[in-house]
């Protein structure tokens, strides 16, 4: 620790420091204001309006849309269970991979990282269609049917949807965990072992706390979008479940009832924001986290 006072103890330095902070936050602030806050304010206003006769929005003040939105509790719960299941699945598949990449891969780290993301530069649609082939009667389902001599169906069931979800969201789980674990100093583990800790204890008290921010970020980056996901279940699950995403798409695009869709969207956003804030607070309440500027 330096005994010297930093150069920022004088007011000129403090002003410069504030200027730097402002400059750093300027671009994102502009984007958030113009392309997030303003559009969402419009959505909120729409949620109190009525559907224009030809579709769209007409100014009004009514709570009808919210009353109807409360009726979407079923799709919400279905989406919730799908998102939870999907996140757990992605975690089980992604965490060991991220750990291996960060701690064991050595020279091949970057290569593995790139190889992980390159499949996603082919189109989402034909990737998903490939799963239709792989899991269909010409693929796995047919193979298993021949094996068991009976009928076997994977497509149109939750299994197919899970495969599709884990496949599609894997990078979002792996990348955050990787970047946190990669920073971990291996000597810490060795020190821990030298002090007599077993493998599991080392993991729990050294590795896990370091990986935790990555785990949290990864889980949220997977769970949140999965709540709105409906295309993968539509294609691989044959649309046999009705999700929040379906309800929103119907409102906005099929019925062109923007107020109804907006109310559902607002409710979803509020519920999830509250849930996540609570979740993060719960996670961090014991931890002594201190934000220090790395600049």
């Amino acid at each position: 620790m330096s005994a010297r006072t930093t150069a920022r103890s004088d007011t000129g330095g403090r002003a410069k420091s504030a200027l730097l902070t402002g400059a750093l936050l300027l671009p994102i602030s502009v984007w958030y204001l113009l392309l997030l806050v303003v559009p969402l304010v419009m959505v909120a206003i729409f949620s109190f309006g009525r559907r224009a006769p030809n579709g769209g929005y007409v100014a009004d003040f009514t709570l009808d849309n919210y009353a109807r939105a409360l009726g979407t509790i079923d799709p919400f719960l279905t989406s919730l269970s799908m998102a939870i299941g999907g996140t757990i699945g992605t975690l089980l598949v992604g965490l060991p991979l991220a750990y291996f990449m960060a701690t064991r891969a050595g020279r091949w780290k970057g290569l593995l990282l790139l190889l992980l993301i390159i499949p996603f530069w082919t189109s989402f649609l034909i990737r998903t269609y490939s799963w239709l082939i792989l899991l269909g009667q010409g693929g796995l389902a047919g193979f298993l049917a021949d094996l068991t001599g009976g009928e076997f169906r994977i497509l149109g069931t939750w299994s197919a949807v899970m495969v599709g979800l884990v496949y599609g969201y894997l990078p979002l789980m792996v990348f955050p965990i990787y970047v946190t674990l990669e920073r971990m100093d291996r000597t810490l583990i060795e020190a821990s072992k030298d002090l007599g800790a077993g493998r599991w204890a080392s993991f729990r008290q050294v590795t896990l706390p370091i990986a935790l921010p990555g785990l949290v970020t990864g889980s949220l980056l997977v769970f949140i979008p999965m709540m709105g996901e409906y295309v993968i279940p539509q294609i691989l699950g044959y649309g046999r479940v009705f999700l929040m995403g379906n309800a929103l798409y119907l409102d906005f695009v099929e019925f062109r009832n923007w107020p109804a869709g907006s109310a559902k969207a607002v409710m979803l956003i509020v519920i999830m924001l509250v849930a996540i804030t609570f979740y993060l607070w719960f996670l961090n309440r014991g931890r002594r986290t201190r934000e220090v500027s790395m600049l």
Partner: protein
Amino acid sequence: MNDIDRMLRTTPINRRSALGVLGLTGASAALAACAGGTSPAPSTEASAPASVAASTEPSAAASFEAESELLIYNWTDYISDKNLAEFKTRYGTDVTQDFFASNEEFITKVQAGGSGYDLGCPTAEYVQALIEAGIVQKLDHSRIPNLQYINPTFLNNAWDPNADYMIPKDYGTTGILYRTKLVPEPVTSWKDLYDLTIGKYSGKVVFVNSMGDVFPMPLKMLGYSVNDNDPAHLEEARKIFLDLAPHILALDSDTYDDKMTSGEALLVLGWTGPITDLKANPDTADTVYLVPTEGTIFWMDVWMMFADAPHPNASYAWLNFIHEPAIQAEETIANYYATANDEAKKLVPAEILNDPAVFPPDDVIASLEGSLDHSGVQQRADIWAEFASKIGG
């Protein structure tokens, strides 16, 4: 022709469309009352193109110099390559196309202000909403002399009686596709489809994921018009929907042909699009398409010009060009959809002309109805959402 007449002119109109029709009729009457000017110059038209030679002759469409670019918002693969090349040769205009995946996406985007195109190619019933929003440009017929070749009952249809805003591109129907080899029972009506779906072939039936195309089924089964919005009638339709829902394999507009090929779907409520490919594949060559006896909807894709079209000259040149009989016939050959242009029909090869899936025979035409845009009818929306949520049980 009487039957088409009846189909197209006497489609029961609900209050909303009556207003629209009256509005249009009023506007065109007012226009006709004006002395025959060249450009109607509605308030929604963009700045006058600088290169317009103010000609008072209605027939010389080529006297307007077409711009070098034309922007069309269209379905994929919906214009013959030969025609695009021919257009370029004649007018020197490059046609740039952007593609949309569904009418709903088209209209949602355009209605919300997404713009920049010259021409659009949606299905007719969706244009009404855009007309009332002032997004569609009124057409100057004097610049489209080839309109004379279009069958008047298609040109002056219930959606746009005076063809002020849209010109027919092609038309087709929504019906039943099924594998004759795997379904030995006779399938001729919606009732047959209903019985087989809740009965023997439960779990092997696919409906397209489109409210406008599926709602006519129960309504026609019950003997009502597809544009019937009587709450009691819609409630009856709802019961049929709920009967069907648990037995339907999927609501799928895009891969039902694959499902037919794999044998997962034996009966489909769908469109004629995949029929050529299915028939070409020896495994599925037994697939047939039919229009049910109770009747069904016929859809018509139309050309419309955006009010703020950046290249109006090229747009008019295109609209006139595409209805030149030889050009239009080439479209029919390339796209395998029926044309409303009588002169072009004479140039269409016999095997397409005689294909009932493409050109419905007269007795079938008698049972066809044009559907209006009912996306705003709350009861329909609720029923559809309920139906979609109960698919598969």
